[in-house]
């Protein structure tokens, strides 16, 4: 504590109970974390000093951005030094001609794209929490978002990262040009969930705004028909900018809020966004109309103007707010399955939830097979938590059995590390631990996360509520 105060200043080192409670959790349902001293560094040198002080005193350290993670990646286990990066929030440089920007990790995702307004450029990763999540957090989680279908997840948009390694050394991984020199240590670092070091400056790739954008709303009388249409679009060689599905439960819940004109009697709707140049977009609209009608779409609506586009998206983004009227609590899962298995797996999810006597709403990134089943419940009901967890586990199993993976964008954190062996063999996990050990031989950076072999964090088990305004 004394070393940390000396390295920063007293105002930026906190240890009171209120702060420790606040920083003991993130946006996940996991409760029971225990934060130690909380530091708010403002420079790379200060981050390094925090790391060195923590390790010198035999403490672990956990880096944290806005705490919007949904897998417990920032939940502290045994009173580690918390290194909160939200005060490192400067956009350091924007190079429009080379289409890159250097930012500090605490810059909020949407703030960067707002800052770029008028340049014709934007930062492509658009996780649901983009109004509050930080770019440092996006790097840690290799975050996704609806438009990652075409543009790729965060890793494809990070050119270089300045990192404070777990021994306090500062290195720059990657370079402004993009192609790696030697090992792609930048690529290895992105998605490391804070277990490999702390990003203190990030060079991001900026994406050109497309000259033409079209948003389509398709509605279907069965989830199966909607899922088959998703596969048909991809199989026809089209990669929309975004391709999202909402089932009837979601549509019924959100329509009263947004008046987007969603057909509430449809079993499922698809939101398809196409972008690019005018002729290409027009051609894809035509082809999607054809595919939709052969696959049983009841209607295809193309948003006529920006206002209508925004309303269609607003409904998609309001799912979380709307469900509060149905049940007070919810647990969100995140798995990916082969796109061709969508209909079958979604059907199975309905059955699992039925068996556990819960309610599920499906609102997800259908284009890349990224499921987000949302289990609704009332935590006051006795024994409901066990049923929620059982359903969650079964959904993960069904996804992996279908040839899928544990997580598409939320990461493993604490939530899913016990499932890692469902997807990976001991040898697979051993190879992953070799990567981690090269960065952090002593296991000080955010231990007990990602790999099942890590230290335990057994007291973090209970479930709580997600914050208001979250969408998935």
């Amino acid at each position, binding site marked *: 504590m004394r070393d940390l105060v000396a390295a920063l200043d007293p105002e930026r080192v906190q240890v009171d109970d209120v702060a420790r409670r606040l920083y003991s959790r993130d946006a996940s349902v996991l409760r029971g974390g225990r934060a130690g001293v909380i530091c708010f560094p403002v420079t790379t040198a200060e981050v390094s000093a925090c790391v060195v002080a923590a390790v010198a005193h035999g403490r672990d350290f956990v880096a944290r951005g806005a705490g919007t993670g949904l897998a417990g990646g920032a939940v502290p286990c045994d009173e580690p030094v918390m290194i909160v990066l939200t005060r490192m929030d400067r956009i350091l440089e924007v190079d429009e001609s080379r289409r890159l920007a250097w930012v500090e990790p605490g810059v909020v995702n949407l703030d960067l794209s707002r800052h770029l307004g008028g340049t014709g450029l934007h930062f492509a990763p658009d996780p649901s929490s983009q109004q509050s999540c930080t770019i440092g957090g996006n790097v840690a989680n290799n975050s996704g978002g609806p438009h990652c279908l075409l543009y790729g997840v965060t890793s494809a948009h990070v050119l270089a990262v300045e990192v404070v390694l777990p021994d306090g050394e500062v290195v720059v991984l990657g370079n402004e040009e993009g192609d790696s020199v030697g090992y792609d240590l930048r690529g290895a670092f992105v998605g490391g969930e804070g277990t490999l070091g702390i990003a203190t400056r990030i060079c991001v790739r900026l994406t050109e705004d497309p000259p033409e954008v079209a948003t389509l709303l398709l509605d279907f009388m069965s989830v199966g028909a909607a899922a088959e249409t998703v596969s048909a679009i991809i199989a026809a060689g089209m990669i929309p900018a975004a391709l999202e599905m909402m089932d009837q439960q979601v549509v019924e819940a959100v329509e009263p809020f947004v008046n987007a004109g969603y057909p509430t009697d449809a079993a499922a709707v698809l939101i398809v966004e196409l972008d690019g140049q005018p002729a290409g977009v027009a051609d894809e609209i035509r082809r999607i109309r054809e595919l939709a009608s052969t696959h049983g779409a009841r209607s295809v609506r193309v948003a006529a103007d920006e206002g209508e586009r925004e309303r269609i998206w607003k409904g998609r983004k309001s799912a979380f707010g709307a469900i509060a009227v149905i049940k007070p609590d919810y647990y969100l899962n995140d798995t990916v399955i082969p*796109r061709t298995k969508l209909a079958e797996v979604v059907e199975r999810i309905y059955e699992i939830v039925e068996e556990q006597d819960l309610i599920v709403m499906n609102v997800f990134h259908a284009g890349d097979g990224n499921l987000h089943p949302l289990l609704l419940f009332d935590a006051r009901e006795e024994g409901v938590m066990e049923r929620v967890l059982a359903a969650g586990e079964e959904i993960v199993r069904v996804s992996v059995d279908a040839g899928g993976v544990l997580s598409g964008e939320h990461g493993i954190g604490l939530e899913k590390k016990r499932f890692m062996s469902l997807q990976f063999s001991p040898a697979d996990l051993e190879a992953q631990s070799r990567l981690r050990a090269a960065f952090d031989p002593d296991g000080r950076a955010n231990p007990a996360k990602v*790999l099942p072999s890590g230290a335990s964090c057994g007291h973090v088990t209970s479930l709580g509520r997600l914050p208001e305004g979250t969408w998935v």
Partner: protein
Amino acid sequence: MTVGDGRMEAFRSEVGDSGAVCVRGGATRWGVGGGSAGAREVSAPVGIMALEPAEMTVMVGAGTTLTELAGELAVHGLEVGMDGPQGSTVGGALAVGRSALRRRRVGQIADVLLQADCVGADGVAFTAGGPTVKNVTGYDLCRLLVGSLGTLALVGRVILRTRPVPVCSVWLAGEVEPDLVLEATYRPASVLWDGARTSVLLEGHGADVDQMVETLARLGLVPAEAPVLAPGRGRWSGLLPDGGVLEVGSGVVHQPDDSGPPIVSEGVLNLAARMRASFDPSGRLNPGRDPYSRAA
């Protein structure tokens, strides 16, 4: 999880658990980062094992040539965002890790690899990544393998992301500054500059490409053959060497010879050395090669 496949098991057994070993692909860039240094040579499985157009993925033996893969994918109107000299294999292109000339459109080579079935230095098979197009489960071993010249593990079989072949594509060239070309186009697939002339590859729907061709004609660009580039690689330092061509936006300079080692900090080299030792403590995988001894 490694799917049972006789060819992978044969590859694993060929690699074994002792003695210096390297995988030989097409050997089109055999000297990159050093040489085999007398290590025992093994071959990766060959052939396309599963092509899933509706998933936009393909499972292929790492010993398959890029040409064979491209031919099979073309039947379905698909391609992978990789290139290499005639005779290059999938595994070789991944090991060398150079992004395609069309990277501005198809993305970096590291983004193409979804899953890799490997044999580690201990002779044990393991799988990196996963079969789906989106995946953040655990550490990103696939990215680490791309460009590692087979020094961390030997790759036998991979799942790659495919993408639709562009409907229309055309090269233009003219004596114009590259910045002007970038301003006048939307996501060109490649922009090359030799110090005087800019070459640009336009891709997309026919009418959109025609529109850009018209705009660029006013700047003095005319249709041209695809440029023939020198085999070596260097990195942009603000000056073009004789005969060099800059890939605008990537910092790669195509030039007659590979240039000297790029400047990498000691901290990065130390981390890289720890990485190599962590995966291959006895130094048996491609002992003659160093990913940091090459140009780009």
